[in-house]
């Protein structure tokens, strides 16, 4: 019952933030993370196109469940994707993603020195994500 990784992909598919949320998370290098981010972005877009039922703005991959992993994605209206991976059986994934989105709007979007679509280097955001994680009992 633990969250593993968080990564944030911008509108064009570039990775703007990634961090591991517990020690059980796999050790992946930065380049690998960039590849994962852009691959997920492409898969998300393909899934939206291939879906038999269309219509909403936020079509695309929302949840991937497998034996070893649960992956949840939240796409904002501006095309930013917040992706959270966790061990199977972890609850509140959508809620945590929404909280992280709120933290993003507060700490990154209101910071005049943060450039949009660029990697997030705001310490306040990191601390806010830590707070969200501790509130949802991440061990």
């Amino acid at each position, binding site marked *: 019952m633990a969250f593993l990784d968080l990564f944030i992909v911008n509108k064009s598919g570039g990775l703007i933030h990634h961090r591991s949320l517990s020690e059980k998370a796999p050790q992946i290098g930065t380049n690998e993370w960039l590849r994962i981010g852009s691959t997920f972005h492409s898969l998300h877009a393909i899934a939206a196109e291939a879906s038999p039922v269309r219509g909403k703005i936020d079509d695309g991959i929302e949840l991937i469940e497998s034996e070893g992993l649960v992956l949840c994605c939240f796409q904002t209206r501006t095309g930013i994707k917040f992706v959270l991976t966790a061990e199977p059986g972890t609850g509140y994934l959508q809620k945590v993603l929404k909280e992280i989105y709120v933290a993003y709007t507060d700490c990154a979007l209101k910071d*005049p*020195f943060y450039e949009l679509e660029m990697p997030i280097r*705001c*310490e*306040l*955001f990191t601390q806010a994500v830590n*707070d969200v994680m501790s509130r949802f009992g991440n061990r």
Partner: protein
Amino acid sequence: NNRTRRRKQTKNQPYSIDNNKDLLLTFIAFKMSRQTAMPTSILDRPLTRGRTEQVSLSAFGLMYSELVQYHQNRVSSIPELERRLESSGYGVGFKVLELLAFRGREAKRETRIMSILQFISVTAWKSLFGKGADSLERSLDNADEYMIFDNNPITSTFLSSHKSSADAYISGIIAGILEGAGFTARVQAVCPSADEGDARGIIGLPRRKDKAVFVVKFADKVLERDAALG
């Protein structure tokens, strides 16, 4: 038949003084109804506050972020950005001083350094930011320096870097108030790390690890004048 009769009654009256008075009354009635129907411009509202209004912190944060980005696109260095933000706040300071002096209805203006600084750290701060400054101290090292402490100024609440540069706006406000009151001074914002006791958190944001100190350095003439006053 009824229709033709009504038409005869409403044919145009010749221009006369009575018509003019009716016109004036209808115009006044229309204007008054317009005033209650449409919101009045902020410049027409009375200066004395009927009820205290509140602005959301997020709205201020986003607008101030745009102000900083506007200046940042036009400068080539951080000190220049700080100067621009300070001059933006300078004008605000003058106007805030006038407004608060009018609303406070005080008969006398402040002439001593300590009283004008108290006015700033208590009255001006409360009017601008909703609460007084956290403390006002005199520097031990320099006789001409005073410090106003604020644990979480709203100009740098959402920032992660260059916080003292963003607080230059508040430095400008303080400098404007002082200049308007007749105390020439230079104000500088610094950002030392906060002690454990300074619990100034905003709900929803992580606790701030540093605080802001506004160092006020008065001109020599001001200090001499204050000393001469006894």
